[in-house]
């Protein structure tokens, strides 16, 4: 009954239209504004600055040392956190997959860092790393150890952010990998055991390849999230010392909200957006993300 099917399609379209319209307005509107302002030198304290200036902001970005520094910081931050979270997450998932006593309680306990509000996590770690206040003093003071100033030493500051971030988000990768482990078929492992494979060989040749899709999914999630690292940096180091812990989104934030240079900040964000989309496309296109049973 084609005419009835066509009628149904029309009705569905009309009913969906308002929701779609709102969705597009809410997402596309700001994106469009972002794009438009990136082509202006908009400064909120100077109303006459909403004028077209072409690719000036983008050219300025190329010459901006502070921008390139922020890219470097972002790269190091993302690489360290994603790698650590995958490795640790895998280890934890393998552990939690075993028949342990109090397994359920353990699993719930391990999830706590992930469900805490990020700002709370940031405050906790800030206190932990502030020599004047930290509970670590209970250990170091009697032993006469002088703690370095974790958050203001250039060599250590980024490390503290990485540590806090890994503590907060490893439960996420653990969850994904644990779920994948539990869905894994027993037969290949059984067969390998019967053939005399060692646990390490079982892990390397059976478990790991079967886990590849889950690993890539978890890795991709964490990579994209690592671009949004904000609460930790805002609370713990403010981008300092100097600009040692200032990734690109934080730099963009300071330009937009400390200095009201909206135009310049928008250009930075557009660049970040394109890089994120390109990265996602690259990773999603990699072989192995599909569940191929080899």
């Amino acid at each position, binding site marked *: 009954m084609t005419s009835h099917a066509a009628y149904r399609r029309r009705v569905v379209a009309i009913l969906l239209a308002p929701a779609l319209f709102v969705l597009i307005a809410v997402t596309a509107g700001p994106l469009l504004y972002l794009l438009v302002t990136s082509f202006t*030198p908009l*400064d*909120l*304290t*100077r*109303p006459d600055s909403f004028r077209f200036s072409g690719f000036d902001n983008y050219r*300025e970005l190329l*010459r*901006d*040392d*502070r921008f390139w520094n922020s890219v470097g910081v972002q790269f190091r931050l993302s690489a360290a956190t994603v790698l650590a979270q995958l490795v640790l997450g895998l280890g934890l998932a393998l552990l939690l997959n075993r028949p342990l006593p109090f397994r359920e309680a353990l699993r719930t306990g391990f999830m706590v860092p992930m469900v805490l509000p990020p700002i709370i996590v940031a405050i906790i770690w800030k206190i932990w790393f*502030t*020599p*004047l206040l930290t509970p670590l003093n209970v250990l170091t003071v009697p032993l006469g150890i*002088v*703690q*370095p*100033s*974790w*958050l*203001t*030493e*250039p060599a250590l500051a980024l490390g503290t952010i990485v540590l806090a971030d890994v503590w907060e988000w490893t439960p996420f990768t653990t969850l994904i990998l644990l779920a994948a482990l539990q869905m894994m078929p027993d037969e290949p492992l059984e067969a390998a055991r019967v053939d005399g494979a060692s646990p390490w060989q079982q892990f390397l040749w059976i478990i790991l390849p079967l886990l590849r899709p889950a690993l890539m999914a978890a890795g991709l999630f964490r990579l994209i999230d690592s671009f949004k690292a904000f609460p930790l940096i805002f609370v713990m*180091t*403010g981008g*300092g*010392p*100097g*600009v*040692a812990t200032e990734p690109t989104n934080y730099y963009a934030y*300071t330009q937009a*909200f*400390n*200095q*009201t*240079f909206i135009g310049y900040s928008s250009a930075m964000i557009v660049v970040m957006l394109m890089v994120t989309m390109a990265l996602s496309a690259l990773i999603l296109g990699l072989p192995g993300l599909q569940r191929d049973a080899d």
Partner: protein
Amino acid sequence: MAPFSKRFAGTTIRLSMFDTAFPRGLRGLVPEFTELTGINVDFELLGFTVFLQRSDLELSGGTGAVDAMTLVFAQSGRWIGAGWPEDLTPFIKGSNFDIDDLLPGPLAAMRRGEKIYGIPWLADSQLMLYRKDLMSTPPDTFDELLETAKRIHSPSVAGYMPAGKAGLNWVFPTFLYGFGGKFFANPPTDLRPELGRPEAIQAADYWAGRLLRNYGVPGSANFEDTEGIATMQQGRAAMWIHSLGQLTGALDRQKSAVADKVAFAAPPRGPAGRFPQVASHGLMIPMASKKKEAAWEFIRWATSRETMRRVALDSQHAAVTRASVLNDPEFKKKYRLAGSDVPALHLAALTAAGAGYMSYRTVPEFPAVTERVVIALSATASGQKSAADAMTAANGEILRLLERAGHKVR
């Protein structure tokens, strides 16, 4: 001044200020204001950096969510230039406000010709707080400062207490000008930045590269002013150069372990002279406020002679802006602290600044300029870059920044 009435009884105004001595003292008196006028005050006290961010957002968004707020000295050029504060001249005339009692220096920053955009409540000067139990005389020159800090510095008591991010922004200029350097060639007309010159590099090397790096309190680069005050109160630093409004926190007898052991002196002088920084913060009404008359009632009460005098006497606010309060015998008695005549030091700083060296701070682009300088100093103090590299790089960025803002600087 016109008497207060209950014309606006039942209104609630929102007040936003950053945390320092005067608002802290003022907050305790607000119930009296409400009784006098029937106006309720929603008083928000924020840390300095958070206050700045929120204020920028509020002012640029023009939401009208705030009815009265602090007009920050270093932002006054930028905010008044953007047209964000309301012109208060009609309110002043209409209520016969005794504007002439206010010190001309602090008022000048909020005035543009005949129009006044803020009423100053703080004429902040920079002084040096020092532990008289750790040194017999305070250092007078930059060299003496470094020597004294080095001599005293130990794991339990740091030689020097840097004032965190606020300090990099606010105290560095004392040393910049003390070494003969400056921010701009001749503000406000000639804005060529001079931060790559030898004097500026020398100042950065001395201040960040040597004093802060070696003799500062560990971790203090991240401190907000409240943490700095707490550190001083715990007796963990020997000297501190900062605003009078923050230093007086160390005198709080209830919280400070060293209230009896501190004294005040003028900041040290360098080869080019002594340049204590001064700033004036005021109260302003955002253009977008919908309760301007009620907000003005609050402002004229808060900055009135009686209120200012009471806050100065009951709390630790010494940086007053009214000549009548500065000359008040009880005020003078309270702030004469063993060996240090604080009102005299304060007045000396304000007078010195009359020479005009503070004009760099009210240039509209100054906030963006100082952000880059703070980063350079922070990099120097943490050993990431040499003073020469950091300042030269900052100067280059500032040049481009000023050009983008439309100034001819090359």
